[in-house]
């Protein structure tokens, strides 16, 4: 009986170690940030789970409970942190490496612009998506608006609801006057604030 | 021979020197503080390696007996608790003083616009000269 338990436990341990090693290799070899996140996340979830569950077969009852609790918390926390990390990276504008993989979350620019402006001017033909520049301007705006925190707080609550819906579509592209972009960035200062502290 | 018995100290010294090098060679204040924290951890590690007894277990008594009659087994080899106590408090004090250092860095950034050592010194010097002239 104990031999059988030991064998099962060893199988779990070996599986866990396998996933850890594969995760490590993947972290080094995979091409871009997102697939690397997948590898790292696998180390956390599958690898750690395998090892901890494997250890259960060699442990006393109380320790088993503790180990399973640890598994539960790792599954909660590490998975979610990977999720948050990837989303933050995406918001920051880190690109997918593989050109054959289409980024389905970015709408084709033609339709987006058409929806936003109603009709597309011929001259404004679709520039390639310059995510790096967007990330730069993100940092810029964050620092500009940082000073007006107190101000933003006072009217942030009201103006947020509009800016929430607007800022995604046209107001961003058509912010021609300085004042408009200023007020926009003010209302966003809170979001930037917490965004920074998260990253 | 000494390698087998002393290598812990040597690795700890290497770690310590890594931290020290960051502190004195890097110009960036935040980087300096990171070096300081590496240095601090290696000093803590030096103390803890000294407190270790071969074959010893953690200095929490292995109890024998049940409930109120339990008595510690004093024949078990325990590690020395004194360095542990000293280092435990040192870690928390370390983070508190680290926060103080980081607060200073933030203030320096606000008044000088930079956190690079040499730029700060340059600006100081320029100001002094302008005061003298």
């Amino acid at each position, binding site marked *: 009986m104990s031999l059988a338990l030991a064998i099962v436990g060893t199988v779990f341990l070996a599986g866990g170690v396998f996933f850890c090693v594969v995760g490590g290799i993947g972290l080094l070899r995979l091409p871009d940030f997102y697939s690397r996140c997948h590898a790292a996340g696998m180390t956390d979830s599958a690898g750690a789970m395998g090892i901890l569950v494997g250890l259960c077969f060699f442990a006393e009852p109380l320790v088993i409970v503790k180990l399973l609790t640890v598994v539960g918390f790792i599954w909660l926390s590490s998975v*979610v942190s990977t999720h948050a990390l990837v989303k*933050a990276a995406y*918001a920051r*504008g880190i690109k997918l490496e593989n050109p054959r993989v289409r980024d389905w*979350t*970015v*709408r084709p620019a033609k339709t987006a612009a058409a929806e936003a402006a109603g009709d597309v001017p011929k001259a404004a033909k679709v*520039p390639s998506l*310059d995510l790096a520049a*967007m990330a730069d*301007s993100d940092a*810029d*705006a964050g620092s500009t608006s940082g*000073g007006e925190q107190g101000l933003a*707080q006072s009217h942030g609550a009201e103006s*947020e609801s509009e800016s929430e819906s607007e*800022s995604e*579509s046209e107001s*961003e592209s058509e912010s021609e006057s300085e004042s408009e972009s200023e007020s926009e960035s003010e209302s966003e200062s809170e979001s930037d604030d917490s965004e920074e*502290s*998260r990253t | 021979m000494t390698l087998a018995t*002393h290598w*812990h*100290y040597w*690795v700890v010294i290497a770690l310590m020197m890594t931290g*020290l*090098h960051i502190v*004195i*060679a890097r*110009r960036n204040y*935040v980087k300096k503080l*990171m070096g300081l*924290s*590496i240095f601090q951890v290696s000093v803590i*590690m030096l103390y803890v390696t*000294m*407190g*270790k007894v*071969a074959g010893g*277990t953690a*200095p*929490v008594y292995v109890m024998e007996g049940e409930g109120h009659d339990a008595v510690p087994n*004093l024949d078990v080899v325990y590690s020395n*608790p*004194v360095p*542990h*106590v000293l280092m*435990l*408090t040192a870690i*928390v*004090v370390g*983070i*508190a*003083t*680290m926060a103080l250092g980081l*607060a200073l860095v*933030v203030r320096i*950034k606000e008044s000088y*616009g930079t956190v*690079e050592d040499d730029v700060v010194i340059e600006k100081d010097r320029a100001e002094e000269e302008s005061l003298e002239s």
Partner: protein
Amino acid sequence: MTELPLEAVLFVFLLVVGIVVGRLRNLFGAAMLTGIFSFLSAGLFTLLTAVDVAFTEAAVGAGISTVLFLATLALTDDTERESERSWLAIGVVSLTGLALFFGTFDMPAFGDPDAPIHHGVGRHYLMHSWDEIGLPNVVTSVLASYRGYDTFGELAVVFTAGIGVLLLLRSKAAVMGAKAKPIPVRSRAPYVREMPIVRAVAKVMLPFILLFALYVQAHGDFGPGGGFQAGVVFAAAFILYGLVWGPRAVQGIAPERMLEGGMAFGVLLYGGVGVAALFAGGTFLDYSAFTPEHPSHGQHWGIFLVELGVGITVSAVMVVIYFVFTARPRPRLPKRKKGALAPPRLTAVPELPVETPKEGSS
């Protein structure tokens, strides 16, 4: 001997991480690596049987200090300038290293039970603390009772550092304090608001973290744990709350007044227990004086209260430090260029960065 390969691997990792921290110019990466460095060293402390130290290091080094570094980087620059190689620094470091290296030859072998360090008070604590204090965790006995003065001093240092950070970073326009406006419910950080998974999981985990902190606080007498660790874990729960719902949300449940009071109250509680021992007829921090007929009961009570004081001060200081760092307005940089792209916002999937024609391109 089974630890040997593990120790060797961890030490190699530590060395590599330490060197990379020195060479990395991206300070965000370096900050994460210092967290990893702390976590690896916590593993090593466990192997070296210093479980209490490992616990503290894991909570402080990997948790709080990383958050502090990141908060600082948000207020300063996130990349380091290129600095020239300084041969003087390398010379100084290698000389110091060599001197220390030769110094080790006079040290006792690693793990030698007859080393001088094991002859002094350490042996006494191990042999007699059960009769004198009556706690299974010798580290707690030494920390709170035998070396209570030390710990009191350390706590005072933590308190002072907290005050120092407050003085340095609390600006007049700070969001905190009596003048702070009540938090509008809708002003939670939109960034996290659009991450329902993170919010839900944080909500699930928070009570467990708080419960664990209380457990660590109370269980420090019997296993690894105690006021320092519990304080840090408790603060970590608040910091998590702040990261997910924004710092202002935390001020709703833990106003700054209360935290400042907590900082002082913990130290006062510690000192007060000592003074109470004086009134009970003993010396300062001599808990046995509380119950002369049964000294170890008095010790238990004294240690419990003192650890409580430590926990309160440490957690309050950590939360306050986190607050002042995040509440600090960021330094102004040149304004956004006219007509430049607004920052991309994170939203539900279909609305993500829609490309917009730039002014220059038309």
